[in-house]
């Protein structure tokens, strides 16, 4: 069946074309510095950055505390925390939606469909992740320090700070994991943000939109741009933490 074969070859080129087109588009988007795209990128970074900040401010200490304190029911708390890493974004989105909706208890704040709502949703989503992974990272160090801290009678807030400080290189990876989860997330932000053009549209919701329009090449191009952003953020963090490690304290 020569025709069938020829057809297959033609099809192969077909999705490959989408693929290469995506690369070209991604390049054009980046070079063109399209203002709409820049706005979307900026909002993505602002929302995820804020959410990550909140998540780290809560998740690091909580994770560290669980990592080094011994208390009744600790294993249970750890199991719950680890399970919360599997919190589906859509569920988080729904919960936050119900809270912030006009019919919800926090409706009077009028936060729904604003970037603030997206920050809340992402923070709720990744705080357990940051806490659970911090717990793991801090625990190794905490075991090493535990007896020293006990014999020195280090009060827990001081111990916490010391663990976070001395464990910072591991915590950087944890923060990056949280960042990755948040920046890539779409289910929660689309529910509470609404993917409203010029207001709450971020990279992932744009990608979802282009996908549902069937413009796979553009969706993929946006995906590449998003990955490039993630790469840039990671490289920055790596450069910073390399600087500390070179000082020899890592």
């Amino acid at each position, binding site marked *: 069946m020569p025709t069938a074969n020829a057809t297959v070859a033609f099809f192969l080129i077909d999705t490959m074309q989408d693929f290469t087109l995506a690369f070209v588009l991604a390049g054009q988007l980046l070079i063109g510095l399209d203002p709409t795209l820049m706005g979307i990128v900026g909002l993505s970074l602002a929302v995820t950055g804020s959410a990550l900040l909140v998540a780290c401010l809560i998740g690091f200490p909580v994770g560290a505390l669980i990592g080094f304190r011994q208390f009744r029911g600790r294993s249970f708390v750890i199991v719950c925390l680890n399970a919360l890493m599997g919190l589906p974004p859509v569920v988080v989105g729904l919960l936050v939606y119900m809270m912030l909706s006009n019919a919800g208890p926090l409706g009077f704040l009028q936060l729904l469909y604003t970037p603030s709502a997206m920050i809340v949703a992402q923070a709720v989503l990744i705080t357990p992740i940051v806490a659970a992974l911090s717990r793991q990272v801090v625990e190794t*160090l905490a075991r090493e320090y535990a*007896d*020293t801290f*006990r014999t*020195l009678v280090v009060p827990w807030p*001081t111990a916490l700070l*010391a663990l976070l400080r001395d464990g910072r290189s591991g915590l950087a990876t944890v923060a990056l994991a949280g960042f990755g989860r948040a920046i890539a997330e779409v289910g929660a932000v689309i529910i509470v943000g609404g993917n409203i053009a010029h207001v709450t549209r971020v990279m992932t919701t744009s990608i979802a939109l282009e996908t549902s329009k069937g413009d796979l090449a553009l969706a993929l191009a946006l995906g590449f741009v998003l990955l490039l952003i993630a790469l840039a953020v990671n490289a920055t963090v790596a450069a910073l933490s390399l600087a500390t490690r070179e000082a*020899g304290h890592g």
Partner: protein
Amino acid sequence: MASIVSTVPFPGRFASAPQVRTSRCQRSLQTVDLGFEAGGKTILDKVSMTLSPSGLTVLLGPNGAGKSVFLRLANGLLLPTRGTVRWGDDRPTDATRLTQSFVFQRPVLLRRSALDNVAFVLKLRGVAEARGKARSLLDAAGLGALADRPARVLSGGEQQRLAIVRALATGPGVLLLDEPTASLDPASVAAVEALIRSAESQGVKVILVTHDVAQARRLAHDVVFLSGGVVREHTAAADFFLSPHSAEARAYLDGRLIPQEETNSC
């Protein structure tokens, strides 16, 4: 010896260390039927003894005798599975630990500079200008040149010395020292011994674990000999080194293996 003290790496700066302890009144360490089990093994068994509230007690015994475990129980880092530990009337708590300093057999240094390790405990005790004081403590101990090095890259002996400086920085009333000079060069050993003596002469209770019999001879007021988790004897130093009561201690001092039947350690 006094002339050495002034030139050795640990000049007698202990007297000027921050005096944090509120009460200098020492309390005697008393254990009653103390026992500790872990991993299904009895590690310490029926340890009953009273240590005087001052002076230097040396804890001797073969590897695995339970010396380090005893110190941890005394400090309250481990909880006995049987019997009790008391400092005066108190069980080991944060309050008793605040007056004690413990140098572990394998000192754990914070992943920071040598200076920050000392500054950390000073800050902890509310000392003002902690970093400045830490630096002068390091200088006084001859470790000034290492102040800004990450503690993790220090040599074995340097780490041990840093741990000792850190322990003394808080001006403790009780010193628990687990083989503090095991990795030290002869001069540093002499210096640390001088420091210990000086602390002791100021009323600090010292409990010292060592395998250096000569050191024990030089420093001990009384000797507790442990083997296989059991106290074989508790004797005044003079008597102990002249002729120990127990067969185990005699074997130990002779550098002989303690007969297997009588111990549960290796």
